[in-house]
């Protein structure tokens, strides 16, 4: 136990760097994923059969294959087309993955906005896209906050797989330090504590945000 404690202290600085990378990865991939999710959610509600099928296909592929396979395919596959740094390969890979889940979240949220809202906007002369942008999406996003928050937490945990394409994020740090010291366990316990902390803080933050958004409702 004393040994574990001293390992915890000694490794603090290195883990903080890993944490910083984990957070950057998660936030960047979340932002990209929201764009992807929004795009495919739009396809899904477009009422154009072909576009719907494209969106379904994307979602099916993401849900039907392990994340680690997706990350590796993007890592090697993208490299053949255009060379991007690991950070971006990982971010895009993670975003490609959670984008499918976010597409479903957003689609659900959009469809939960009543037709009355759209009609009111249209009757004021607002165009279809203006209505979407100014009336439907702001409300849908607000409703999607809890699910998006949840997806973000999943994204943070998923970002651990980025270590396998060489990124020294939290899990990568624990793996490297463990393998260098030939004693993995204390480092994996340490990293578990860091993840639990991040997730705990985020869960609280998401709950707060939810409460705050509820005020105007």
């Amino acid at each position, binding site marked *: 136990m004393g040994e574990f404690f001293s390992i915890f202290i000694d490794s603090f600085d290195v883990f903080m760097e890993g944490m910083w990378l984990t957070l950057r990865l998660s936030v960047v991939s979340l932002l990209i994923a929201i764009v992807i999710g929004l795009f495919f959610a739009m396809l899904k509600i477009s009422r154009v059969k072909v576009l719907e099928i494209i969106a379904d296909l994307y979602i099916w592929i993401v849900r039907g294959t392990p994340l680690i396979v997706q990350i590796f395919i993007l890592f090697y596959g993208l490299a053949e087309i255009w060379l991007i740094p690991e950070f971006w390969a990982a971010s895009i890979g993670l975003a490609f993955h959670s984008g499918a889940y976010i597409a479903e979240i957003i689609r659900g949220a959009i469809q939960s906005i*009543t037709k*009355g*809202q759209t*009609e*009111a*906007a*249209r*009757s*004021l*002369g*607002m*165009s279809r896209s*203006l209505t979407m942008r*100014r*009336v439907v999406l*702001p*409300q849908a996003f*607000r409703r999607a906050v809890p699910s998006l928050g949840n997806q973000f937490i999943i994204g943070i945990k998923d970002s651990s797989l980025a270590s396998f394409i060489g990124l020294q994020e939290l899990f990568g740090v624990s793996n490297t330090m463990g393998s260098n010291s030939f004693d993995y366990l204390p480092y994996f316990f340490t990293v578990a504590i860091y993840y639990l902390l991040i997730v705990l803080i985020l869960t609280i933050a998401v709950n707060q945000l939810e409460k705050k958004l509820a005020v*105007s*409702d």
Partner: protein
Amino acid sequence: MTEPREMIRVEKLNKSFGDLHVLFDIDLKVNESDVVVLIGASGSGKSTLLRCLNFLEFKDDGNIIIEGEQVEADTHDLNKVRQKVGMVFQHFNLFPHKTVLGNVIEAPIQVKGMSKKEATKEGKRLLDKVGLGDKYDVYPSRLSGGQKQRVAIARALAMQPDIMLFDEPTSALDPELVGEVLETMKELGNEGMTMVVVTHEMGFAREVGDWVVYMNEGRIVEEGKPDQIFDHPKEERTKAFLDSIL
């Protein structure tokens, strides 16, 4: 006496939903400053007719002429047409994520490109007019139904429409709140706004209405001045309907 300006003309309008034929050969004329009241049993097609006038539904057949221009969905910019025709819904449909003032200035800024300052000034004037001068920054969820409906009216007026359509604007309200909304509508009528109103409020129809149209099963059965329709209906069905609701 000059011929009054014709704001809406509907000719042989037909509309179906799938197999369900909802409107049959509707003819209707609304002149400037007229208040036309549409009455009829549930399902008779009143809302559908109103929604066709605002192009929230598309006619199958017939003509809709707004301010002299025959409007077709495929050749006209409907967003432009809709700016001339405001609509107020039974369930208000305020934007819950915007304040009262935000609801009112949204379309003028986004659609008309009005400056925020100008839109705010005009919006406040309209809110004062409908008696909500103290609610600018409140969110809709904090308002009573009657207040919500008055915001909805102000919101529609902010686009400076030539015609206002009302689809049962008071029927989702608690009885004690109906009065304030009807009062607002009455003022509007008195100021010369052209209005088409679907309502079951016969007192309003009689007092404010210039013309009453009774619909049944997708057809206009009888129309005329309020006194005539209410006191001397010609058709049996009209009589039966009026008996049932009064």
